[in-house]
Every structure is written in C-alpha cells, then in structure tokens.
C-alpha cells in the first residue's frame, strides 16, 4: 500500500514490489498464489481501513442526518488526502473470486443502507425512500465528486473550488433524503 500511495495502482507489479522490499519477485509468490491474490489482500485491507475511518467518525453523530454528513465528508477527504489509494479503492483490477474482499465491500454498503433506513424510521429522512436505491445514489455521488476533485483535468466537468463542489454535492445528496418543506414546488 505504501508503494500504491506513492506511485499509484499502476506501480503494483511483482517487479516493483520486489525492488521495494529488496527481495526477489519469487519471494512474493511464497506468500501469495499470484499478483491477483496480493492485490486482493491489499484491497481488502484498504477497504477495512476506509470503512473503519469513515464509520467510526459517523457513529459519533447524534442524528442520521449528521452521520450522513460526516460519512460523506470523510469519504471525500480520504480521496483528497490519498488520491492514489482512492483510485486503487475504486478501480482495483481484480480478476479472480475473493470472498473476503466482497464481504468487506458489502459491509460498507450495508452500513450505508442501514443508516438511511434508520433515518427513515426516525422520521429524519423521507418515508417513501428505498434505502438501497438511496444508498447507491449517495455512493455514486461520493465516488463521482471525489473522482472529479482529484482529477488532473477536473475542468472538463466543473471549475468550482474543491470545498464548493463538496458542500454542493453533499447538499444534493441530502436533498434526496430529507423531507421536503411544505409548499415546495416539487410537491405541489
């Protein structure tokens, strides 16, 4: 992960890892069946760390709305602080079947869906929401906005400052969740 953070996911080759650890490329295969196995292990570990980081912050919140805000900001801030790791997180080139990795990613999504479900139950979010659809919408907005913010060609999509994009996108995500005020033209 140190190599990935410094040089990006493209640097994750057996040869580069061997150079980095001052061992032969074959030493790698004593611990992992293949490069795919090593990448899966690193990816699973990264997922665990990101899940821990964003959720331990969000769970301190007093309301589902506040928890959602913290979660959203923490996720995007992770991308801004660790752009190469973020790219690895969302585009890891895994080929085989890796149940541990799948479980870790499913866990992150389940917690997001449960947060929205709890918000609906407590009346903080709209009662007609489908928590699964809204969890996907929030996830897509987080990934899309974070990708843009770390992109070297971000002007393709938007020229606003990073903090402006982050807060506007968070408002957009919340607008889909929060009950609409009485008299809102969308309802009338």
């Amino acid at each position, binding site marked *: 992960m140190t190599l990935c953070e410094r040089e*990006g*996911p*493209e*640097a994750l*080759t057996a040869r580069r890892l061997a150079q980095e650890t001052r061992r032969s490329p074959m030493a790698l295969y004593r611990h992992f069946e293949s490069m795919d196995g090593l990448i899966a292990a690193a990816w699973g570990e990264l997922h665990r760390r990101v899940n821990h980081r964003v959720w331990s912050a969000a769970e301190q919140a007093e309301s589902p709305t506040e928890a959602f805000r913290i979660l959203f900001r923490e996720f995007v801030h992770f991308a801004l602080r660790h752009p190469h790791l973020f*790219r690895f997180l*969302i*585009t*890891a*080139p*895994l080929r085989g079947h890796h149940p541990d990795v*799948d479980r870790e*990613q*499913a866990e992150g*999504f*389940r917690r997001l869906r449960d947060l929205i479900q709890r918000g609906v139950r407590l009346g903080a979010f709209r009662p007609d929401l489908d928590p*699964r*659809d809204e969890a*996907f*919408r929030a*996830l*897509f*907005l*987080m*990934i*899309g*906005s974070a*990708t*843009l913010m770390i*992109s*070297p*060609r971000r002007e*393709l*999509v*938007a020229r606003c400052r990073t903090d402006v*994009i982050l807060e*506007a*996108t968070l408002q*957009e995500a919340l607008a*889909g969740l929060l009950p609409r005020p009485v008299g809102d*033209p*969308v309802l009338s």
Partner: protein
Amino acid sequence: MSVHTGPHEAPAGVATLNEHRRRSRHCAEDFVTHATCICEREGVGAVTARRIAKEMGLSAMALYRHFSSMENLLAVVWNEGFAQLLAVMNVTSESQGGGLEGFRATLRAYVRFGIENPGLYQFMFTAGARPEDFGLENYGLDAMQRLREMVAVVRRSEEGAAERSSEMDAVFVWFLLHGLTTVAISGQAQKVSGLDVDELIDRTTQRILDAI
C-alpha cells in the same frame, strides 16, 4: 486523425528494404489502436513504447516517427476515447429523437460504454492528458459540453425547473453516472445489490431524471 509527427523517415540507407516496407505499412492510427488495446487489457501502466513496439513487431523508435513523445501518444489515446464516447452519446440520443427519451437512452449508453471499455474509461477520467498541447481538439471538453446541453434541454421541458442551476445539475448527473459506471465496472454494485447491471442502470437513470 491529426497527430504530431516527428522526423518522418530514417536517413537513406539506414533501413533495409524489408524494414522500410514493414514500417510504411504502419501509420499513427495503428499505434493508437495498439496502445488503446493494451490500456484496455492491462491498464495504462502497461502502455510503454517498448510494449507497443513489441506487439507491432517494430522497434520502440518507430513510435517516435509518428509521435513526439509517449505523452503525445497517450494524449491521442485519451482524446480518441472521448471522441468515441461523444459519438456514442450523439448517435444514441438521435436514435431516440433527442429530448427526454434521447437523454434517458444516452445515460444508459454512457454507462454501457464504460462497462465495455473499462481500462480506457478509467484512463479517460484519471489521466492528465492534454491533447490541446499537441494541437488537437479536446474531445473531453466536447463530450462534457454535450452532456450539459442534454441536461439543459431536459430541464427546459420540465415545469418549475428554472430555479435550479442547469450547470450544477449537469455536474451532479455526471457524478452519478461516473459513480455508477465505476462501481458497475468493478462488478461490486451487482454483488451487493443483487440487481443485474441493466436494472441498476435503469433505477439510477430514473433517479437522475426524477432529480432534474
């Protein structure tokens, strides 16, 4: 295709007749095609002059007869990706007669483009390629401008939509599209949701249309 061409021919007498014949069969488009294929199969990290040349049965120097640098070649690959995406968007929208149905079909086609060309798609949105530095029109800007125009057309047809910014709506649409495409490429969205990719695309597309 307009690309920067370097020194055109080796000095007379340097290349053998067979080598000359083999080189002359390859043009800039061949290098772009091979580079795109490698990017698609193995990611942009695998796209090197040596690797492309090896696949084409040429020396690495052959590439520099058509491109001033690897950055030049990668800028062309990046731009060609956006040119393809723009063409898909335009053809799809027109096939539905434009408007709301054209937009809906375009959103689906966008995600499908990413799923069918995952390496190229990821390269297009993570690389810092600058085709304009090599005298090329930037199709990335054109593709995003086309998306903005489509969002504006759909919003104009919706009553009461004028209070929101069409520009920001287009940005949010792209965030959703890119997020969906990225997660669909990894296959994880399908695994955690139990939905197949078309159902996921349709549900997200409808959610996008509801929001604008």
